[in-house]
């Protein structure tokens, strides 16, 4: 993905895509994609927040955007939900163009943004009522629907208290309920569980999964939690500096990194770290080695048990004192680190190795 230049002529891309879709076999046709984006770009002055993102999310998917703060997740969500105009590119949500059919898009989607966007002076019930009215839920159905949604998110007992008195978890749940008043087929959640305690987080995951399973609701969520992406999402796109650097199912992504990772803290300055990576990379079965300030050196190996003693021997021979040696199964964390992490600059081998892994899997 990062190898491609952003589509600067989205209409051409779109036309091409339609052409392809029309000629593809029936089961491959994506004419009914829930979310599709072509070369989405967003610049704020000199800041390039999003640098050419292409997306295809099928109905019924839980699609996750994984990235650190500032990677462009929120900006992308704001473009897809009609709150921001893209600098370049185009997107369709529920089949409607986000620019020319923004009203239709808003009717089709439910959105819960990063900070629960609530009004602390209203009660939970009042907020859902107002929300229902603005979505034109028929008058006679409003009370029932509001009561039902309050029950769904476990807030019936607190419905008539002011939102300002709610805990963070309650506010998130109410926010989610407010995104559901009009039964949207696609729901956008921007960092839905950031700042939640583990129990509330698990509860929210349960709601999302049930809505997805029982009502076929499509979810597009952003997160900075690997665990969240891993547990919840059918498909994950790793976002870094406004570009998708890796995309796939959680298992598929994990398969792109080696089976095992050996973590080791080598003492000394950055030069020592670079030297260590330099001596570890040529070892048999080692596919990659990268240094990170916090984690130390991560050595990716096809067979950790064979590599571990070699790592010890090699570092000893190279006169590199080390500590905290441990062996772990590769996780999404490693996928992310390999896709976005700080790798050793500019010293040849390691840099190239990291480069090639990244290039090969993108």
């Amino acid at each position: 993905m990062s190898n491609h230049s952003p589509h600067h002529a989205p209409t051409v891309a779109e036309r091409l895509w339609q052409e392809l879709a029309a000629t593809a076999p029936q089961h491959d046709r994506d004419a009914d994609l829930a979310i599709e984006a072509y070369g989405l770009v967003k610049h704020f002055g000199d800041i390039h927040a999003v640098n050419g993102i292409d997306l295809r999310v099928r109905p019924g998917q839980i699609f996750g955007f994984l990235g650190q703060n500032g990677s462009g997740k929120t900006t992308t969500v704001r473009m897809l939900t009609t709150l921001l105009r893209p600098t370049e590119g185009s997107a369709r949500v529920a089949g409607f163009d986000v620019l020319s059919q923004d009203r239709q898009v808003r009717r089709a989607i439910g959105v819960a943004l990063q900070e629960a966007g609530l009004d602390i002076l209203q009660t939970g019930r009042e907020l859902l009522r107002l929300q229902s009215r603005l979505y034109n839920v028929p008058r006679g159905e409003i009370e029932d629907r509001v009561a039902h949604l309050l029950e769904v998110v476990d807030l019936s007992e607190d419905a008539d208290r002011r939102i300002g008195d709610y805990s963070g978890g309650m506010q998130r749940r109410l926010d989610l309920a407010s995104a559901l008043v009009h039964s949207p087929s696609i729901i956008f959640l921007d960092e839905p569980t950031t700042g939640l305690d583990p129990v509330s987080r698990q509860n929210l995951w349960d709601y999302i999964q049930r809505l997805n399973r029982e009502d076929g609701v499509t979810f597009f969520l952003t997160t900075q939690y690997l665990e969240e992406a891993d547990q919840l999402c059918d498909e994950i796109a790793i976002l870094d500096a406004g570009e998708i650097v890796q995309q796939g199912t959680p298992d598929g992504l994990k398969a792109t990194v080696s089976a095992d990772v050996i973590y080791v803290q080598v003492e000394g300055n950055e030069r020592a770290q670079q030297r260590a990576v330099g001596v570890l990379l040529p070892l048999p079965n080692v596919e990659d080695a990268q240094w990170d300030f916090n984690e130390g050196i991560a050595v990716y190996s096809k067979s950790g048990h064979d590599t571990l003693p070699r790592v010890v021997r090699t570092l000893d021979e190279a006169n590199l004192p080390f500590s905290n040696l441990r062996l772990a199964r590769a996780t999404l964390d490693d996928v992310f680190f390999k896709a976005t992490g700080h790798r050793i600059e500019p010293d040849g081998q390691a840099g190239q190795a990291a480069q090639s892994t990244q290039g090969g899997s993108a």
Partner: protein
Amino acid sequence: MTTLEVPPAPEDSSSRAAGPLQVLIDARHLAVRAIRESTRQPGVEITNVFIPLFFLAVSTGAIANFSERGFGVENYLAFQLPVAVLQAVAGSSAASGIAIVLDMERGYFDKLLLTPASRWSLIIGRVWADAVRAIFFATIMLVAALIAGSGMATGVPGAILILIIAGLFGGAYSGIGIFIAMRTGNAQAAQAGFLLFFPLLFMAPAFAPLAVFDDWLRIIATINPVTYIMEGMRGLVMEGYAWPVTEGGQIVFGPDGLPMTKDPPALHWAFVSLAGFSAFTLTIAALALRSRTRAD
């Protein structure tokens, strides 16, 4: 917790009334919410009552005894009543800019933008709520002044006219708060919107008639729309109805180029000024909303 089945969404083509009517329906829902919020922060609203009443009391206490000798105003409380009304209204409307900024900071403004409701209904809802609140605060000022002995030359119809003017001024003034909120998204800036009220109210014949002003101040007051709104109300309190002098169906213009009126200040100028003032504030508010929501 129960099952998650949610009733099907309404068909979108048929369920929303077309165009302007829907904007007004949505605006009304939003206005109701804004008014409800005021009632839930009595502490905030009490200042909108206290400050103008305080000014009314102290300025009358200080000046009433020589106002007749000084500049020929016999009932200074009556003279001050429109100032109190406008002050209360400006204070309450300026607060709504701050409310919008708080909505933005809490993310609720985005939530409203994400609904299919028209952007215009967001502005109209606020203006609507501010007009209603303006009438509420104006009523308090009016009742307090009447009890204290201001009198009302035009009786109940005049009082109703004053409330209507107050409501229109409140709606117009809220455009300033909306403009600042949309442009800056900053609570302090929105707070400063209240400061505009000082030049607007006090570079007008608030404490004394225009006739005794220094030239520089009189010139500024002459181009200040609030002058005409204030004088229009003042005429209703102190003198009676005043309409332009006409001759054979034609309005007669005086030497200063303005339509001549009988003695009391001309009520029609109050409405003309209100129209101009609100056209200006609501236009900048609408433009600011558009540039924010289009946005970048």
